[in-house]
């Protein structure tokens, strides 16, 4: 029995709240957490939190008819309510940290929307100058720093090395140039068509309805810092999460962040469920995850291979670095969103002669058409943790999906944080 501690659950993942509470042998805090008909969240915390150590469990996942942003606002409101209710300390427990992985570039590196300024006419139409803000006839341009030197023209020249002229500009959808007269250019349609995945930004045609002004490389919001700041501003004194996509996110916070690892669970699964795992190959499906995968490979003394994405101007192809012929392959990554990366990697591995393919990921979000993609893929066994609710996914994928339970890790982390014990043992237990 742990005393003076309150575990409060959001609506995103009731199963893990229940499981953590039963491990800590305490009831979950009574609360009302619904919506008013206007759409505003309604939160009432019915048990006293005065002087208590409050842990609020809410994962960054919207599904089953609920919305991610609703869950996040609920979390902030709960934190704030506990703070104004004189809680001694409020800890936000986010098994999956929302907004931790967003693309920072709207296009592939090679497909960046550089505009063509090689011809004379191009020079007339486009300028690197961001001023005037509202392009119009008769609006004067801002002066350069040095009189008589038109710095914009020089920029235009130096930025176009040989051959770059072949890089075509991003076409205006309606074939009009923007700077013409300010008329006839439809403003962006704010209501957007269809659903997007984090991969779609790589594909110019998906963002066809929207074009940045010529000469401006569009600015994509990075919400990670914002989310961190919002949690702190709501009153979170401590954050516990797991397998952050970027460990740097910890640095966005001014409060302590405990980034737990799902790695020990994955390791244990490999040891207990994969026969002759010593002869298998650990694969990282992209260069970014190499560190994660090598950590497991090194610790277990298993060979390692890497899939490298080659992106030339038109298409992306994948290349395997290492040998997988007649071997069992274990793909390791942190997050399965649309399943695009992992299924393509599996396809390549099969082509390279892999006998069996396991895919082990900490967070299984399964958004978009991920379920169908996985079903059709060459992956023989997919293993995820229950950092987000997996019941529905398990029902759809059946025996292809194994779910590992992370609630003991979070229960133990909460217990240790509450008692002021070190939690570093959770980082490398086996």
């Amino acid at each position, binding site marked *: 029995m742990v005393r003076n501690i309150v575990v409060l659950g959001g609506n995103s993942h009731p199963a893990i709240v229940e499981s953590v509470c039963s491990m800590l042998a305490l009831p979950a805090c009574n609360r009302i957490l619904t919506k008013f008909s206007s759409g*505003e969240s309604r939160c*009432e915390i019915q048990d006293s939190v005065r002087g208590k150590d409050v842990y609020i469990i809410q994962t960054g996942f919207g599904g089953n008819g609920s919305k991610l942003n609703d869950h996040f606002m609920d979390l902030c409101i*709960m934190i704030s*309510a506990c703070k104004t209710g004189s809680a001694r300390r409020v800890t936000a427990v986010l098994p999956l940290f929302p907004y931790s992985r967003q693309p920072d570039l709207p296009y592939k590196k090679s497909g960046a929307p550089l505009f063509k300024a090689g011809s004379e006419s191009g020079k007339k139409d486009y300028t690197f100058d961001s001023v005037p803000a509202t392009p*119009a006839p008769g609006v004067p341009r*801002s002066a350069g720093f040095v009189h008589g030197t038109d710095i914009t023209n020089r920029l235009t020249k130096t930025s176009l090395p040989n051959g770059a002229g072949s890089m075509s500009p991003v076409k205006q959808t309606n074939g009009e140039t923007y700077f013409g007269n300010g008329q006839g250019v439809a403003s962006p349609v704010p209501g957007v068509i269809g659903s*997007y995945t984090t991969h779609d930004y790589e594909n110019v045609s998906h963002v066809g309805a*929207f074009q940045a002004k010529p000469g401006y490389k569009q600015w994509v919001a990075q*919400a990670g810092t*914002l989310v961190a700041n919002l949690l702190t501003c709501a009153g979170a004194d401590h954050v516990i999460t797991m397998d952050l996509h970027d460990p740097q996110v910890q640095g966005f916070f001014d409060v302590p962040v405990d980034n737990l690892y799902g790695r020990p669970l994955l390791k244990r699964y490999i040891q207990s469920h994969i026969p002759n795992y010593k002869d298998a190959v650990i694969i990282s499906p992209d260069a970014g995850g190499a560190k994660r995968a090598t950590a497991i490979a090194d610790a277990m003394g298993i060979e390692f291979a890497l899939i490298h994405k080659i992106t030339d101007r038109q298409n992306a192809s994948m290349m395997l670095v290492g040998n997988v012929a007649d071997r069992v392959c274990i793909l390791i990554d942190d997050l399965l969103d649309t399943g695009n990366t992992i299924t393509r990697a599996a396809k390549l591995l099969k082509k390279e002669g892999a006998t069996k393919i396991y895919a082990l990921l900490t967070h299984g979000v399964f958004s978009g058409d991920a379920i169908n993609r996985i079903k059709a893929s060459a992956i023989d066994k997919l293993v995820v943790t229950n950092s987000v609710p997996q019941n529905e996914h398990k029902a759809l994928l059946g025996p292809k999906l194994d779910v590992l339970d992370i609630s003991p890790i979070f229960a133990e982390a909460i217990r240790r944080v509450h008692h002021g014990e070190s939690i570093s043992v959770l980082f490398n237990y086996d």
Partner: protein
Amino acid sequence: MSAEMANEIKLISGRSHPELSENIAKRYDQIPLGRPPLGIEVARTISLNYSNQETSFTVGESVRDEDVFIVQSTSTGDVNEGLMELLIMISACRTASARRITAVIPNFPYARQDKKDKSRAPISARLVANMLQTAGANHIVTVDLHASQIQGFFSVPVDNLYAEPSFLRYIRENFTAEDCVIVSPDAGGAKRATSIADHLNTAFALIHKERPRPNVVGRMVLVGNVEDKVAILVDDMADTCGTLVKAAAVLKENGAKSVLALVTHGILSGSAIETLNGSVLSALVVTNTVPLGDKVQRCPKLRVIDISPTIAEAIRRTHNGESVSYLFTHAPV
């Protein structure tokens, strides 16, 4: 000249209420500015939700050193989506080096959760205020805050515009003041209603109500005389419309010739439209601070006053460093 040109208005629209943003931009075209009457356009941006439901926002033109105004209302049922989108937009403009970011939030979300009225109740309005500032808003423009004290939750300037001048004009254009009596549907709105009654020099009445639970209306008592008059109910928001419709019935019982309601924010959630259609109210007049969607088609009693001239003028004055207080008593045409 060049220094002036470097700081332009950038009007950015969220997904919740693009029509309002368009109206503001269009309205802006008509204001003579002493320069080519190009006015402004809504900036090129795109907001979308990924399949994992995370909101993404992209700016398609430079906002560096510009005066950014972000228009985002809260559409009924999707308050949290709109709020997160607004916060992400503000944060994106902040990191893209905007000089000043003004959040134009015609209908301030969570305005009713502004006090700790029971144990451990969240003061969500203050949370929203803190979040907006954390995201990087330097200035807030809003219309008819539920409680003007919410301004005190901010440490940045808040311009709380009023729909009252627009309502006064509507009443003057459609009724003779002597025939009317202004009615407040609850004690909390008495100040708002008396202000209108004073400006029109008409009578005033008040309905006292008991409210056992939120969104549930109790017994109502009329204080004042409405016999053979046009009773005009005045309030700041119409949500489920339970209060308004009950108040209208009470007024009818007390001999009012007809009853209409003037409400700033037409949230109209739940079964509000059906409630209205079946009520004795002859008309519900709202401003377009909240996107109404197809509600105007579904409810023949609903009339809409365009608030965008007031907001556009507030934006112009804020940008040019002029006083905004003129707008508290006058509605631009």
